[in-house]
């Protein structure tokens, strides 16, 4: 992540606030992303506050249009801090996020966190990446637990799917 042309943001806020934060934090050191939290912090928070990072194969201005966080990140509200930087070698954008210490997780997020909030952060980053690269978040087919039990059946083929 080169420093020249790097856009670095530390924000958990929405819209204008995020844009302001992005502008004011330009030039923040890349070293921040590689720092490993010490045992004291991990003990205090229950989790090492490691940065979760994905590389998005699009330039920062596409990942962060108008410096507004994409929808999946906005859902995390103030609970995370985020950094954005141009990736080396023309590989797009490095998008990093980590949990803020003592973050209050909003609504459903808090319910979904389980034992490790970094998993939700990582999943969210992957969703942002998918949105930027493909225009959609890929959805799974209905899983067996959504569909109910299989009904044994040997009826002849139907003419088309029943809808």
């Amino acid at each position, binding site marked *: 992540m080169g420093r020249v042309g790097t856009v670095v943001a530390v924000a958990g806020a929405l819209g204008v606030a995020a844009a302001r934060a992005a502008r004011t934090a330009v030039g923040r050191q890349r070293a921040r992303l590689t720092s490993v939290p010490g045992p004291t912090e991990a003990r205090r928070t229950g989790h090492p506050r490691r940065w979760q990072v994905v*590389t998005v*194969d699009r330039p920062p201005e596409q990942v962060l249009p108008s410096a507004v966080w994409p929808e999946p990140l906005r859902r995390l509200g103030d609970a995370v801090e985020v950094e954005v930087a141009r990736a080396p070698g023309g*590989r*797009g954008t490095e998008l990093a996020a980590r949990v803020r210490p003592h973050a209050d997780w909003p609504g459903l997020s808090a319910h979904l966190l389980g034992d490790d909030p970094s*998993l939700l952060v*990582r*999943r969210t980053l*992957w969703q942002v*990446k*998918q949105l930027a*690269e*493909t*225009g*959609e978040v*890929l*959805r*799974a*087919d*209905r*899983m*067996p*637990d959504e*569909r109910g*039990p*299989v*009904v*044994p*059946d*040997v*009826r002849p*083929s*139907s003419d*088309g*799917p*029943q*809808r």
Partner: protein
Amino acid sequence: MRALCWTSGGELTVGQVPDPELRNDHDVIVRVRRSATCGADLSLLAGQTPGLAAGDVLGHEFLGDVIEVGPQVRRHRVGDRVVVCASVACGACWYCRRGLPSCCDNGSTDPIANEAQWGHPVAGCFGQPRAAGGFAGSHAEYVRVPYADVGAFPVPESVGDDRAVFASDAAPTGWLGAEGAEVRPGDVVAVWGAGAVGQLAARAAWLLGAERVIVVDRHPARLLMARQHIGVETIDQRDSDVSAQLREFSGGRGPDVCVEAVGGPAGEHRTLADRFTGRTRVPEAVREAVYACRKGGSVFVLNGAAGHVDAFPVGTVVHKALTVRGGRQHGQRHIPMLLDRMARDELRTEHLATHHFPLERAAEGYALFRDRPDECLRAVFTPH
């Protein structure tokens, strides 16, 4: 609709499940014409790959007719006969844009689970556990196909269903083995495994200009098929010193290129004791290939079911300056070319479909494929 499902007892049953639906804008729904069994499924059924849930629909190698298209689909219309790449890739990420769709970043609906398994997310696949994609399989009347503009390809009219179905997985996998190992004109190539993928890797080696192609297996009927349909020489592992014979075939040098295409060993279970002690399988074919390959040669590993293995001769790789590579098929890149070759009769695959079953007898087809009492190479299901 009807579909072949895995049940909680590890058995297979054909049952009624809800029809697939468009879940993303780039999806199409395909009415399945042919869906083939694959050796990769056997390791699933043998319990070597965790994560199958009762009710999961199996199958990933298929073709069919498009019956419904999502609003962002540009290349397909209702009524198109398409072969669908068994792996799911977006066509838009860094890896896809560099011709490595099996490494796609966006092909799985659960990249976190994928990372846990392989270190990074890779392309998804139909008919696998959720962690490997989240897409129902093709042993069904209908299938939803994500990223359809990227992974579904119109089949030339002159190419029949029994030929085209293998363009979904076996043919691009075999092609990758030969191309990825960089087969060059004049090369001596050895392929381990005379199943569908092995035979098609051997055929790909011919098409890339190999001077001599040798297929190694322990099933005489498969070796006979490889001789008859692919025109290769064969070595029966049961009564041969494979390395010595390969040296004979190659002027004492060893093959320039070795391709491992043995697939998952049918029915081999890791026992509870194996799991407790961490004992892993020995990759016999890969090990044999590494010993046999000439110095400075190339070994390509296609067996995705290999998982974790041990007792690998790393020192041989170093001392002989070998290049060892592996990969899952890059069908999104290769299928159009393979269909063209099929249309020109350069690539014939019908003989691989040794047995046909209607979908309601699919469980029987798998038993035959697994136990091979009737020399079944591939069972192919016709849902309609």
